């Protein structure tokens, strides 16, 4: 089992290895996709072996995988697979078009593999200090991806991203320190004492005042990575300027890793402080994010920025779901995480194809997508409706669960407000994407060399949408069991 967990985290490095060995975009992309597929397979096998049994723990708690970590690892590995498949066509086209040099391509795949591997490792450690180290390292690797094109706009976005996120994660480290201070009474001596399961089991011995501060600092700090308002300012820039497959990784994988860290702190805080304080914190940041995300979506402009603000909105929805709490709220939050990751990966990957073909990222200059590029246009339109929560896709189910959790939570004001904001987001978002899909198609030259690349560009879109559709109609018994075990972990 330990070997499986190690394989999950290390196999995405195949892309880095291929790039370092000097492979060109196609070969490195294929190597990356194979590595991601192995990682996904191993994470599924790990979840099957765990199946509610005792979590996998080793090396003084540095290695620790329970259902919750395994669930997030599966999500991240799945997104990595989709984004790696998308990278093959996107980066090859950019290499052939002369927009990226051979060096930049090798840099891209080196950091892509490293980024995925660091995120997966962060989900498999029980030590909260090591969690910080890995999250910060993944920030650095992804900042290199954001700035890879080297234009002044992408460097500006990368600078904003690295400086804001690094400061944010450092605040989370201060939060971790305060958590350890709050455990003074436990006389933590060994490495085992610094691990999440130990602190959760001994939560009653934690000092409440410093724990309050620790939780708040952790939400602000890791919340910067999640993109919770008002710490979200780096997010639209980074998502808009990064190469599209890298945007998919940021939005669908990285944000979830930040949310995972918050969930770990939430569990400890709830065990000692009760539900009221942690929930109030999460509800405030969550609603702030939904409001900011929905309002900025009204503006029509760069379509990748639109998708980025939708990520802010969705992270807000997940935070609100955690704030509602209870079995329903947690179930909805986890299901929403998986569904949003799939839908957003499809959206960003199809936006990459659109940007390559139309040579613009402005929504106003794109029209007739459905007629010109039926597969990409259809995927973009369907994924838009999916991300907005229309049936029959998975997000409809998870958002319905969250709203129900809200009514069960007590005051009907919050769920009603949530519904109103979702409506606003729907109108704002669909207005832009519907405009892109319809209308007169212009004459377009294909950016790809062969039919194989066109096919491999379409593959992750169809794959992602298919899974999303299945999740909307039917939750497999295995997934249901994993979600229930994860909820028990959070408590």
């Amino acid at each position, binding site marked *: 089992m330990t070997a499986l967990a190690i394989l999950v985290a290390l196999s995405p490095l195949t892309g880095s290895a291929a790039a370092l060995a000097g492979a060109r975009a196609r070969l490195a992309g294929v190597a990356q996709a194979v590595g991601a597929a192995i990682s996904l397979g191993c994470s599924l096998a790990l979840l099957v072996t765990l199946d509610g049994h005792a979590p996998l723990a080793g090396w*003084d708690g*540095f290695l620790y995988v329970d259902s919750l970590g395994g669930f997030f690892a599966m999500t991240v590995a799945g997104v990595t697979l989709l984004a790696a498949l998308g990278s093959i066509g996107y980066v090859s086209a950019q290499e052939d078009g002369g927009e990226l040099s051979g060096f930049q391509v090798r840099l891209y795949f080196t950091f892509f593999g490293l980024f995925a591997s660091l995120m997966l490792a962060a989900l498999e450690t029980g*030590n909260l*200090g*090591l969690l*910080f*180290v*890995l999250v*910060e*390292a993944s920030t*650095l690797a992804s*900042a*290199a991806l954001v*700035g890879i094109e*080297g*234009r*002044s*706009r992408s*460097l*500006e*976005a*990368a*600078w*904003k991203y*690295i*400086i804001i996120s*690094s*400061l944010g994660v*450092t*605040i989370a*480290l*201060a939060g971790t*320190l305060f958590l*350890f*201070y709050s*455990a*003074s009474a*436990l*006389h*933590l*001596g060994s*490495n085992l*004492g*610094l691990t999440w399961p130990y602190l959760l089991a001994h939560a009653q011995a934690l*000092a409440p*005042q*410093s724990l309050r*501060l620790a939780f708040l600092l952790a939400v602000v700090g890791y919340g910067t990575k999640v993109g919770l308002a008002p710490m979200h300012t780096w997010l*639209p*820039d980074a998502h*808009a*300027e990064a190469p599209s497959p890298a945007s998919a990784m940021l939005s669908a994988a990285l944000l979830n890793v930040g949310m995972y860290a918050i969930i770990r702190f939430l569990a400890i805080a709830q065990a000692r402080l009760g539900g009221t304080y942690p929930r109030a914190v999460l509800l405030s940041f969550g609603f702030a994010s939904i409001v900011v995300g929905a309002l*900025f979506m009204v*503006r029509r*402009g760069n379509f990748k*920025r639109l998708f980025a603000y939708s990520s802010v909105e969705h992270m807000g929805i997940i935070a609100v779901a955690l704030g509602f709490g209870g079995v329903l709220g947690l179930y909805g939050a986890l299901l929403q995480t998986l569904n949003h990751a799939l839908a957003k990966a499809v959206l960003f990957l199809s936006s990459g194809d659109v940007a390559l073909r139309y040579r613009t990222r402005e929504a106003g200059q794109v029209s007739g997508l459905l007629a010109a590029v039926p597969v990409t246009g259809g995927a973009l339109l369907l994924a838009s409706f999916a991300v907005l929560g229309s049936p029959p896709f998975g997000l409809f189910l998870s958002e319905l669960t969250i709203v129900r959790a809200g009514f069960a939570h007590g005051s009907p004001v919050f769920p009603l407000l949530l519904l109103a904001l979702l409506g606003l987001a729907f109108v704002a978002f669909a207005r832009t994407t519907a405009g892109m899909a319809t209308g007169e198609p212009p004459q377009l030259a294909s950016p790809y060399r062969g039919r194989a690349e066109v096919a491999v560009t379409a593959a992750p879109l169809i794959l992602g949408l298919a899974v999303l559709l299945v999740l909307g109609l039917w939750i497999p018994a295995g997934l249901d069991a994993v979600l229930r075990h994860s909820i028990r972990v959070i408590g």
Partner: protein
Amino acid sequence: MQSLSATSAAGVLLDLSGVVILLLAFACLASKLFNRYVVYYGAQSVVLSFAAGTAAVAFHSAELWILAALTLAVKGIAIPVAARRLLVTRLALKRDAAMSTGLSTSLIAGGALTAFAYLVSRPALLPHGTVASAVVPLSTAVILLGSLSMVVRRHTVAQLIGWLIVENGVFLGAITLVATFPFIVEAGIFLDIVAGVLIMVVFVSGLTRQLAEASAAELRELRG
């Protein structure tokens, strides 16, 4: 948790180092010349490595000795020297008073933040009589002052050093809890900082090629 008492020799030394580190953070905040800003940061890191050495003696920890030596070599010497070279020779920047607020305003804000740090972290939060109860408010104040320098300084390199001051503050808090933080984590944090600085310097160089002076005030292409 092992913790030193505040009245032991090592405790007093740690406390004193904490105070000097805070004063140097103020000096950074107030310095008008870029050269001095970097020098104050270097001095702060040297004092920090002295504090780590003190903790190493007190806890008989070989790992802390390594960290103290690394802090001295990387943060105390390498980063300030490299930053000076980057600023003075590559960017030809000798004086940069570019702050978005006045000097006195930022100093008053710094004082208020220090008071705030004591207010939040002093009462009932920490066990009395331990060195942690003396040093943690200091380290919180250094974290806040570093963030303030990041906010008020316009130049990208100045923002980078502001982040490093924040890291120094966190490190100061961490060494008073030596038994709690395993070496691998401390070393990982260190590695992150070094890698972070390297990547940021690459970005700054890239921005310098495209903008007049790589000041954050010029970074205004992306909005909304």
